[in-house]
């Protein structure tokens, strides 16, 4: 998107033909932090790749029997495809590469289901957030060369990353449009309620239709969780920025929760950009980085992740990825499953739960301190 725009500007300035501009040689700079505050809900035109999801009306005058028959057909079609078996007619499973320090794997699309306390073996309490991974499948993979030509590409990503689209929560295709359902033709899974894309390197490419589950991560791994924060709507300055307001009494009239002065006089010259004011609060993308996985439940696909600060409400979608923090991301000498975990990888039978070595398990005896230790 950005490249043609800058190219057009250059053409106008230099009065030349558009094709004569060498786009590869332009240095793009990413704009620094935006100080503009969002005061009101804004509506933008839908993106170029957007397809309409929901059908406008479901007024098919079907009898109950017919509806049940359609449901049975739908289940029959998809149940077979969920256990993906590669037939010789299809292209076989893709080649699996080794992990190196530049690799970025796909993430998973989880649901936040609550916050619970846990204890270490020294009896220290801390809180963990539980993230459940329901029905995750890879829907599409786009290699870097193809992705660079697409509309969703940003120049500062360079040519390193391809895109894996991951979907969660299988649904009935009847409630969606034909265009939306066609997105899932390649992977052969039922249409998903929610889709996201993850930037991945070429050696971590995943075949469409591959299921992702909690075994994608191991206990002790560190992840980043990004989600939309709680939507508080239009809020005043006391709640939104934590300003103090003014006293409740002692002659104060009509300014108990207002922000006071907006600007200094003389040299400061009016209101500065980025002044903290009332406006829309929350409902923005935020990332909590460097959260350790303490415990994994493989039966219900639940991850226990450090802290209670994963953004959003309970039952909100959370993008869980390998961390970007250089010292805590998976090291090449202890590589994570690449590109994801497959059932045939398991050398031992899978246990129902995996615990971190420092985590207290509730089947153990109570914590006791030794005499000499302090």
């Amino acid at each position, binding site marked *: 998107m950005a490249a043609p725009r800058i190219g057009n500007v250059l053409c106008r300035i230099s009065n030349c033909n558009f094709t004569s501009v060498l786009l590869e040689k332009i240095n793009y700079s990413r704009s620094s932090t935006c100080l503009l505050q969002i005061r009101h809900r804004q509506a933008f035109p839908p993106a170029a790749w957007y397809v309409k999801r929901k059908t406008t009306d479901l007024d098919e005058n079907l009898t109950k029997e017919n509806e049940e028959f359609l449901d049975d057909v739908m289940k029959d079609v998809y149940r077979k495809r*969920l256990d993906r078996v590669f037939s010789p007619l299809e292209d076989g499973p893709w080649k699996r590469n080794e992990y190196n320090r530049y690799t970025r794997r796909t993430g998973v699309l989880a649901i936040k289901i609550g916050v619970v306390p846990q204890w270490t073996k020294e009896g220290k309490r801390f809180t963990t957030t539980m993230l459940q991974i329901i029905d995750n499948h890879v829907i599409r993979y786009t290699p870097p060369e193809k992705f660079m030509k697409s509309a969703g590409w940003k120049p500062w990503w360079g040519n390193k990353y391809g895109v894996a689209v991951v979907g969660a929560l299988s649904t009935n295709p009847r409630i969606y449009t034909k265009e939306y359902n066609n997105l899932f033709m390649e992977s052969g899974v039922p249409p998903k309620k929610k889709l996201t894309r993850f930037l991945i390197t070429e050696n971590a490419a995943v075949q469409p239709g591959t299921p992702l589950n909690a075994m994608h991560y191991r206990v002790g791994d560190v992840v980043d969780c990004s989600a939309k924060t709680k939507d508080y709507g239009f809020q005043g300055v006391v709640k939104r920025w934590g300003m103090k307001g003014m006293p409740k009494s002692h002659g104060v009239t009509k300014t108990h929760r207002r922000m006071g002065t907006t600007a200094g006089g003389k040299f400061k010259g009016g209101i500065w950009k980025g002044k903290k004011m009332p406006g829309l609060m929350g409902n923005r993308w935020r990332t909590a980085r460097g959260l350790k996985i303490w415990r994994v439940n493989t039966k219900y696909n639940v991850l226990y992740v450090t802290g209670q600060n994963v953004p959003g409400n309970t039952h909100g979608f959370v993008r869980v990825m390998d961390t970007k923090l250089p010292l805590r991301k998976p090291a090449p000498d202890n590589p994570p499953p690449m590109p994801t975990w497959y059932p045939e990888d398991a050398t031992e039978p899978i246990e129902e739960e995996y615990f971190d070595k420092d985590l207290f398990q509730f089947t153990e005896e109570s914590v006791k301190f030794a005499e000499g230790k302090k």
Partner: protein
Amino acid sequence: MASYSRRILPCFWKTTKLLTFEDSARRVPCRYHQELLPTRNYLLPETVEEHRKSELSKHPELPPSITSENVPADFRFVYPEFLPDPQYDRRDSIRERLEREDMYRRRAVIDIPEFYVGSIMAVTVSDQYSPNKENRFVGICIDRGGVGLRAFFILRNVVDGQGIEIMYEMYNPTLQSIQVLKLEKRVDDKLYYLRDAPQEYSTFPFDMDPIPVPKGSTVPVNKMKVQLNPRPWLERWERQDLQGVEDLKLEQRFYDKAAKVAKPWEKYDLMKWYRENTNEEERDSIMQEVHQRKRLTDIEKSKRKTKLAERKR
């Protein structure tokens, strides 16, 4: 009224169905109106449950609900922390199930007895800063709360003329033993007013002998009335509907203000009650599960005891 009906009637005639809010929103000529409408950035618990049970997913089936247990009627007052969170937007069936599983495991290791607000208890915890790495505290339970793994209770006692309160987490692994010295209930749910009462009401000796309750008898209710100290207080006790307190002997203006601030209609607020509680079916199924697990762990514990006794012989 007339103009209102005139405006609606043609719509009836055209569409032959009542216009919902979403329908009317669609008819607004703004281009991106759908995106301006307030949206939810999380799912409702019903939809999540639907997807978990959906045949399209490979989600594990939940174990069948237990119905054959004969649960005593007051069983849920003994194990209140197993019931779902009173905040309805924090409930989730899988989280509660996994949390309960942890609680059963912990209860199999240490014995957490039946107790209520007003019971006198002795608690031993491991403490790395005390000389023998252990700390025992005796006191009256003045509050009990929390749900799931964050369940807690507060003990109060007076040591060397200084009132002391300690909050214990019931599933904390540093907790070594809980002993109920005197099992009884009080008339109130919370006994925070003991802070403003004379110290003899909350003084208990640390070498107190346990007073056993005869088997088969119901838990006794202590109807003692406490005489509070004169004002100033930590809270306005006259505004709380306290049963276990003698006449406060205040001026009439305090009672007038209390009557003005009181919310007597809250106990008739059905919606509020509905939000804070779960339905009876769900509550009973959880209690049956707890009862069954308790029965099984009791059997295991008795087996272990007999084995130990045989070894000693």
